[in-house]
């Protein structure tokens, strides 16, 4: 090897990267150079940097372990903004998969003041104290100290990286997609499956989490397929697939979640590897794919070996070392030791040797090693120690030696600058398990393997426990309905063999890590079992094994094996913990995608909204709608504006946008019969041209909705609902119509948005609208209160109601919505000179409260019956049936002492009580007080020059004239109970 001065561990002869394309980046502020296509880990390794992070609990120095998503240790933070503003910060990024780009700014995490010297590492000294579950056993005294001392301390110590502190400026996209075959994983297995399916003209999506397709074939320098190198075969196959219009290849795309009925979530990282991403690109793209068939070709993940100090920087997985060498052209050291329990590490060692690295020793746990491997090692002059184990290492921030113990018990320290290890390969069962398939234990190979999934999916290749390429190809082809291809395969290395659990019992003298990130050692697992944690689920939660950001990709099998040995139970009886989505951590942004800001939820606006905006309205959200709340004039606060609006309506007139009211057209020969069922009132006697206030209950007898209903003809009703209630009322009606009364000839149509509804209320209302109305006589005689007529207003077809929610003479004009603004303006043109005003929902509330009209949802909640609300007159007694009739007869709904709607007047007329204030009879009683009601509505009434309120009150109707109390934080307010109608009780005005 000829180390370049800048990247001393770059092997010029190896790898697929272009040495001319250098990339500059910084790590903890220090500048480095790497090559285009490097991961942060491979680039740092090329520079001889192994130390990349600190562990969670003990702050142990950690290097990179793996070359993939399974990485538990090398987690770093990336900041994309030059200003380091805190917006584009990404914590907990795996150095092993993050591609470098020019200008990348990476920082280590969970250390202070620096990665090399971390004060938090004192935890390491206390480590024996910090055994599994220690915090359950202490920090309990003194009690208060938990909040003030212990917990803040624990929290500060935890947590790894730092959250962004500003809003994410990046965009995330979403795509729903369908295909015949979805293939997850683009290694040998996935590519062959795609090739076969493509030949059958199926619509295929193939995704792989890596930047390039090929999986392990890219890291294998020796294998040949029909005489081609593995990489060449990948190149040819990918080219063939790319040319096929039925195939969509998605790289940097992780299948993270397998949901019901073959819906799989994929997330594609679009720009994280780019130096200067085009602002039009989304940062990530979520793919929600529904596939007829899913082919899982996830591959296998190499396990580490569990021995003392197996976490020291410089110790890496053998397969990772091979990948770094063959894909990235990086060697992990100059004098490398090998510790293995399977054959694949030999291939890694031989490749390193060939690249010029000295192989200090191969320590093999197995007593018998394949003869061919021994011979090959012998030929290269590499020392092999079978039936031996590494039991410790020297060096803290980077290992410098390994302690090897042989079966005979002799110990030897061998100098190395890196150690590559392998305990064998764990088939990735993540997505198979998420599809609700059960993993099945294979005693012979000591692995869990996929069985039959309840969904339409199949596992192939290394994730299916297949150890060789020829079989992988055969099952891949079969998975997509093809025949096993006839390919000549040479120099394939089998994935078979390995070990789970402790490398050896003598390897446990120090800290032998099972889960690196969460600092779980073999001893912790044993302690958990000793303490009675016999379920693997308890072991997991007590030790936190497998709960870190890598979700136990390396550790789960070891933890399971150690626990099983302690329990003296077979592994499958102890069992795996549950695999859950996401396969690898997935940004919230990719789930949220477009649904931010104005696209979080539709914001519904009426045709008159813009006029209101132009005229200074403040708005109030009501369900999805924005409603004009009040129209302050310059200098007015809300109270003053509402006072003025109220006064104007009562003395002159006001114009109000009521378009958000729900509207349902009920049409058909059985319309009245249907109304009789749905509403508590009777509808038989209502004449066309007349309107009526209706109450709707659910079957339980509580008020569900209300509104005015106009009868347009014998077969047509114009029903209105509350603003928020419109969708559920329509659904409720459809439900009864379709499922209980399917023989009724009646149909329902939502017309909420067909009509703009303009209320003109006040003594001058008629005078204002009269000239605009054609086709109807709206005089007091011909068009009395509670009338409806179809006519024209401003020349456009209209439904004109004479109704009032204010107690004044009033009209509601419905015109087709596109005309809403023009008609409103025409009315306004007459209203303004007449001294009228535009008013909003707040004034509407005050005016209706003065009249004692209820608002469903404010003066009633789901516990108030029509009787409770004083609306018994609207409940037809003679009807044989209506929804709610039976519910209303239940014992508690007919019992005495129910809470009933009443009016309240404060003894001090200036005092406006709080809505939601609670009422008591005896303000002197001790807490808990007996509350007998609460205030539902409360306003200052300018008209009455005093406050008014409504309340639901225990036995309220019987309490007229009683004095009651409202105990607030700083005062007790005295109130008197009375009826709910405060203004114009005789209804003179309304009939004017």
């Amino acid at each position, binding site marked *: 090897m000829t180390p370049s001065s800048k990247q001393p561990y770059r092997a010029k002869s190896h790898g697929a990267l272009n040495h001319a394309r250098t990339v500059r980046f910084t790590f903890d502020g220090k500048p480095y150079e790497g090559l285009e296509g490097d991961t942060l880990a491979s680039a740092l390794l090329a520079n001889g940097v192994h130390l990349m992070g600190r562990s969670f609990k003990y702050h142990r120095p950690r290097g990179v372990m793996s070359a993939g998503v399974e990485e538990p240790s090398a987690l770093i933070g990336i900041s994309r903004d030059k200003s380091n503003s805190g917006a584009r910060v990404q914590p907990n990024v795996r150095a092993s998969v993050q591609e470098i780009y020019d200008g990348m700014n990476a920082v280590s995490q969970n250390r202070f003041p620096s990665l090399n010297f971390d004060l938090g590492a004192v935890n390491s000294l206390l480590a024996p104290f910090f055994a599994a579950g220690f915090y359950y056993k202490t920090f309990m005294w003194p009690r208060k100290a938990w909040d003030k001392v212990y917990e803040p301390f624990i929290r500060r110590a935890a947590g790894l990286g730092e959250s962004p502190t500003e809003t994410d400026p990046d965009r995330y996209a979403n795509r*729903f997609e369908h295909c015949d075959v979805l293939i997850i994983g683009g290694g040998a297995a996935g590519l062959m499956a795609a090739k076969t399916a493509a030949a059958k003209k199926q619509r295929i999506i193939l995704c792989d989490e890596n930047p390039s397709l090929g999986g392990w074939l890219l890291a294998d320098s020796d294998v040949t397929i029909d005489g081609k190198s593995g990489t060449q075969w990948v190149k040819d196959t990918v080219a063939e697939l790319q040319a096929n219009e039925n195939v969509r290849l998605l790289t940097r795309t992780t299948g993270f979640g397998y*949901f019901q009925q073959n819906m799989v979530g994929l997330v594609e990282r679009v720009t994280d590897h780019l130096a200067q991403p085009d602002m039009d690109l989304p940062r990530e793209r979520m793919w929600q794919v529904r596939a007829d068939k899913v082919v899982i070709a996830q591959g296998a993940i190499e396990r580490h070996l569990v021995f003392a100090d197996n976490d020291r920087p410089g110790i890496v997985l053998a397969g990772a070392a091979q990948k770094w060498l063959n894909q990235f052209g990086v060697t992990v050291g100059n004098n490398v030791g090998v510790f293995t329990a399977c054959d694949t590490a030999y291939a890694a060692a031989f490749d390193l040797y060939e690249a010029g690295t000295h192989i200090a020793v191969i320590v093999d746990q197995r007593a018998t090693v394949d003869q061919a491997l021994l011979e090959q090692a012998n030929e290269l002059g590499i020392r092999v120690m079978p039936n031996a184990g590494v039991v410790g290492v020297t060096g803290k921030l980077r290992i410098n030696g390994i302690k090897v113990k042989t079966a005979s018990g002799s110990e030897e320290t061998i100098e190395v600058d890196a150690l590559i290890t392998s305990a064998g390969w764990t088939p990735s069962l993540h997505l198979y398990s998420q599809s609700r398939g059960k993993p099945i234990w294979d005693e012979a190979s000591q692995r869990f393997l996929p069985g039959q999934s309840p969904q339409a999916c199949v596992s192939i290749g290394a994730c299916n426990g297949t150890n060789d390429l020829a079989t992988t190809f055969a099952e891949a082809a079969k998975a997509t309905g093809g025949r096993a291809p006839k390919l000549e395969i040479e120099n394939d290395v089998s994935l078979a063999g390995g070990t789970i659990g402790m490398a050896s019992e003598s390897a446990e003298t120090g800290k032998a890590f099972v889960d690196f990130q969460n600092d779980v050692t073999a001893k912790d697992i044993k302690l958990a079992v000793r303490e009675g944690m016999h379920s693997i689920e308890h072991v997991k939660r007590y030790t936190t094994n497998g709960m870190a950001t890598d979700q136990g990709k390396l550790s789960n099998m070891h933890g399971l094996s150690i626990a099983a040995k302690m329990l003296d139970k077979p592994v499958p009886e102890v069992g795996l913990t549950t695999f859950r989505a996401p396969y690898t951590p997935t940004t919230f942004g990719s789930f949220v995608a477009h649904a931010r800001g104005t696209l979080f939820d539709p914001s519904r606006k009426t045709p008159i909204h813009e006029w209101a905006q132009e005229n200074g309205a403040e708005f109030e959200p009501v369900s999805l709608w924005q409603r004009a709340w009040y129209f302050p004039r310059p200098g007015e606060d809300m109270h003053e504006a509402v006072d003025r609006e109220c006064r104007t309506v009562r003395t002159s007139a006001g114009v109000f946008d009521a378009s958000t009211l729900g509207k349902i057209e009920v049409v058909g020969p059985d319309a009245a019969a249907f109304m009789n069922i749905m509403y508590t009132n009777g509808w038989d006697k209502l004449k066309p041209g007349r309107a009526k206030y209706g109450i709707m209950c659910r079957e*339980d007898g509580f008020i569900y909705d209300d509104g005015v209903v106009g009868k347009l003809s014998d077969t047509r009703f114009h029903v209105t609902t509350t603003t928020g209630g419109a969708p559920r009322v329509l*659904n409720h009606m*459809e439900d009864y119509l379709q*499922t209980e009364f399917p023989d009724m000839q009646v149909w329902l149509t939502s017309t909420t948005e067909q009509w703009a509804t303009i209320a003109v209320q006040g003594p001058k209302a008629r005078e204002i609208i009269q000239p605009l109305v054609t086709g109807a006589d709206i005089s007091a005689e011909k068009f009395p209160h509670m009338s409806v007529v179809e006519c024209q207003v401003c020349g456009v077809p209209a439904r004109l109601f004479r109704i009032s929610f204010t107690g004044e003479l009033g009209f509601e004009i419905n015109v087709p919505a596109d005309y809403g603004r023009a008609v409103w303006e025409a009315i306004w043109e007459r209203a303004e000179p007449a001294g009228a005003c535009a008013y909003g929902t707040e004034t509407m509330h005050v005016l209706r409260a003065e009249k004692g009209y209820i608002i469903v949802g404010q003066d009633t909640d789901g516990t108030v019956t029509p009787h409770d609300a004083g609306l018994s007159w609207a409940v037809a007694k003679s009807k044989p049936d209506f929804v709610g*009739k*039976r519910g209303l007869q239940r014992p508690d709904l007919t019992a005495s002492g129910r809470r009933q709607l009443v009016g309240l007047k404060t003894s001090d007329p200036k005092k406006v009580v709080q809505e939601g204030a609670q009422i008591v009879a005896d303000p002197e009683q001790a807490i808990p007080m007996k509350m007998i009601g609460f205030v539902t509505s409360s306003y200052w009434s300018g008209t009455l020059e005093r406050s008014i309120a409504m309340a639901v009150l225990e036995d309220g109707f019987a309490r007229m004239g009683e004095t009651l109390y409202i105990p607030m934080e700083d005062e007790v307010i005295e109130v008197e109970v009375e009826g709910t109608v405060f203004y114009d009780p005789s209804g003179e005005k309304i009939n004017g």
Partner: protein
Amino acid sequence: MLLIHCPYCKDDRPELEFSNAGEAHIVRPTNMSDISDTEFEAMFFMRDNPKGIALERWRHAHGCGRFFNVARNTVSDKFLKVYKAGEPRPSDAEIEELLK
């Protein structure tokens, strides 16, 4: 997201188009006013809530708007049978069969 077959649209549609409408075959008595408190309780509140085959109603709310019934396995969430509102409840024998 479930994929639900609508018997009216005769097509598999994503769950986002549907709303669940609770247990099926709870018939509203025609003599509603005469039923006892216990019968009312049974109708309005009590539910089978089975672990196994649930007979339940869905509405193709953002589709054809129709309510219909399904038999679904509440453990696997698989739809085993879809039928129109008004069609008879599957017999116990048929449910046994579906469970297999």
